């Protein structure tokens, strides 16, 4: 039954790691803007090519 000391210590330690991760994310401003990243990830990274100039621009629906 004394293994319970060890088990509790472990579980608290793991939970503490998550808490620290959250506090770190909060401090670095992850939750300041919840909207723009949703648009940002839909924008393509393009390879700028001179040949592309002549092609038809893609129509976004």
């Amino acid at each position, binding site marked *: 039954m004394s293994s319970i000391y060890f088990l509790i210590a472990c579980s608290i330690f793991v939970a503490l790691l998550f808490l620290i991760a959250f506090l770190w994310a909060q401090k670095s401003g992850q939750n300041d803007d919840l909207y723009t990243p949703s648009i940002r990830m839909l*924008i393509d990274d*393009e390879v700028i090519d001179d040949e592309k100039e002549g092609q038809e621009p893609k129509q976004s629906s």
Partner: protein
Amino acid sequence: MATLVKPVCYHCGEDTFTGSYQHQDKVFCCSGCLNVYQILSASNLGSYYKLNNHPGKTQVSATQFSYLEEPEIKARLIDYTDSSKTIITFYIPAIHCSSCIWLLEHLHTLHKGILENRVDFLKKQVYIQFDHQQLSLKELAELLQSIGYEPLISLQDVVKEQKKVKDRLPSKIAVAGFCFGNSMLLSFPSYFGLSEGIDADFSYFFGLLNLLFCFPVVFYSGRDFFNRAYKDLRNGILSLDFPLALGIAVLFLRTFVECAFAIGDGFADSLTGLVFFLLTGRYVQQKTYYHLSFERDYRSFFPVSVKVVDANGKETDVPLEKLEEGHRIRIKNQEIIPADAILLQGEAMVDFSFVTGESIPVHKTLGEIIYAGGRQLGGFLELEVVKPVSQSYLTQLWNNEAFKKHSSTRIKTFVSKVSHYFSIILLTIAFGALLYWIPQDWQRGVAAFTAVLIIACPCALALSTPFTMSAALSIFDKNKFYLKNTEVVEQLAAIDTIVFDKTGTITLTENDGVSFKGNLNHELKSVIYSLCKNSSHPLSRKISDYLQDSQEIPLENYIEEAGKGLQATYKQQKIKLGSRLYIAGQKQNDTTHSEVHVSVENDYAGYFTIKQKLRAGLKELLSDLNRTYDAHLLSGDASHDAAKLSPYFKNSNVLHFKQSPQDKLNFINNLLQMGNKVMMIGDGLNDSGALKQSNAGVAITDHINNFTPGSDAILDAASLHLLPRFMQFSKSAVKVIHFSFIISSTYNVFGLAYAVTGNLSPLFAAILMPLSTVTIISFTSLATHYAAKKLNLL
């Protein structure tokens, strides 16, 4: 497929009138749009146009950014600077779509000096890190301007204000939640009575662990409560934070004692739970406030209109929220300048007491910028708007210290009254229980003492008032009744007397009601027209509308005397316009219309008769109001309207005529001294003193510029018929708060009954407190909405 399609600008989608702006077989509406396209395609940023059709906005402005070279201004705007980089956050109102985000995050391709850029779409801000050796702040702003995303720079930046409030609430909630969850888990066995059979060692271990979780909650998450309670105590106020802080402190001490000496289970779960729920409530409150003020900034606006002059000299009334940069506006005597603007014409003597507290008017020269919030004293001005109206800035002015009422006229809010008594009663009961038990069993006495302090929860007051008031305020806003702040709701609920101003409030001038008795030659018409153009008095406006085809000529030495008349000098002659008393020294006979007399160099020239009609719906409004309130009427006119008006009021004694602005003020004061709670409704022009003096001053507006910071509320004339319902709703809102307090008292009495016997179990406390909090919050939100629905305000 040869359909005739009107060519639209490739950049902004507006119609193109000429085909003269073309480039690479794309048409543009103007050189501005063409320029932006050329810049973008030259830097291979053509994808801007792929993401949306016509993502650009029409180019209009030509703002100068040379002031960005001043070091003091730069210092106030930038966030950070060192030898290698400078960081600034710009507010760019033109951000409206994904193309904007795309373009602004590719700024670094337009100039090597831009190191990093990030957009916050909802706040319409761009965060830019740039190398100031390669690119100055002014050049950066000009670059943004050239691609059509001009930054809006204000020294009164709301953007900066928002940044200052960093109380780290989410982090505190996270810590409290972490500790709460863990300590709940550890306390579970004792809830179910399983801790009886466990080793004493384990119980001691669990107890210590629980105690350990209390430390971060009390000293980190709960720190604000202690700070605020201490500050309030130092100022001699017993606010709500005092019992909260006391409860937390007592919980902590009792847990410490019980766990360290192994005499009990401690109250760690209640402590952590309490702090967690209180902080969550505060967070929700903050978000609601932000959302409401955001709505106020961008959705609802003061129902105020400004006269805008177009290129041909034609005037139109433009509502405040539609006022744009580049508009030429006309500001008359006593009107407030609603936005930062450059003076183009007129003799500007501006009273900035609303902004700076300095009541000596400032003389401004042509070409100088006059900042928003100043009040013109003198003839009319023509200005060009350089910065759109900032609603939040005007609201800030409105809530300025200068307009806080004398504390005697403010009905003390319910919360401040109750929180004062709550703490006292609480301590009385606690000491009472202690003294009762001490002769018999001192341990039980201490247990009872601490239990009383723990269980008594003023959560109702802490949470219900802000939620209810904010909900009430937003409902009022939707109905065009714009309150200064949440306290006004309670003031409205306590009103028992309503005083109406006559001109402009109850009466309107009829459209064809103006006629002149005397000889009006062309020159005199122009002089009178120009004279009236300077004044915002309803009669002057009516006369200038009547004479609107006249020519405007410059006048000098314009003076307006409230309640009397106007005068100015033209060709060395003094022109006067006003009441009969002012011009001819005789009191006006009782007639059925208003008279405005004219004299030139003391030679009498004739007079205008202006017929006035009563506002529509007045009968229903007043009969409704007369049932519950005492209604009075104050008027600066002579009593010629008495017969027409007395059927609307209870009797003719409540009609008072020939009141000067000072008389109106004295009348309000008399009513206040007799113990009445007075609401004054006026148009904010000659009654601003009375508005300020009354318990609730309402400025009614017909879409003219009469923003009176001394008032407590602005009511759109179109919503005047809703006034009885507004008063009823404010009473309902206060009733909701009272009722939620009753609910909280019930919980408290119930809990205290257990507490005084010294039998308080941690489980009981842990359930009771969150339960009461949740009940009250849901009750207040639902009840407020229900009340609004019943009155058809929602």
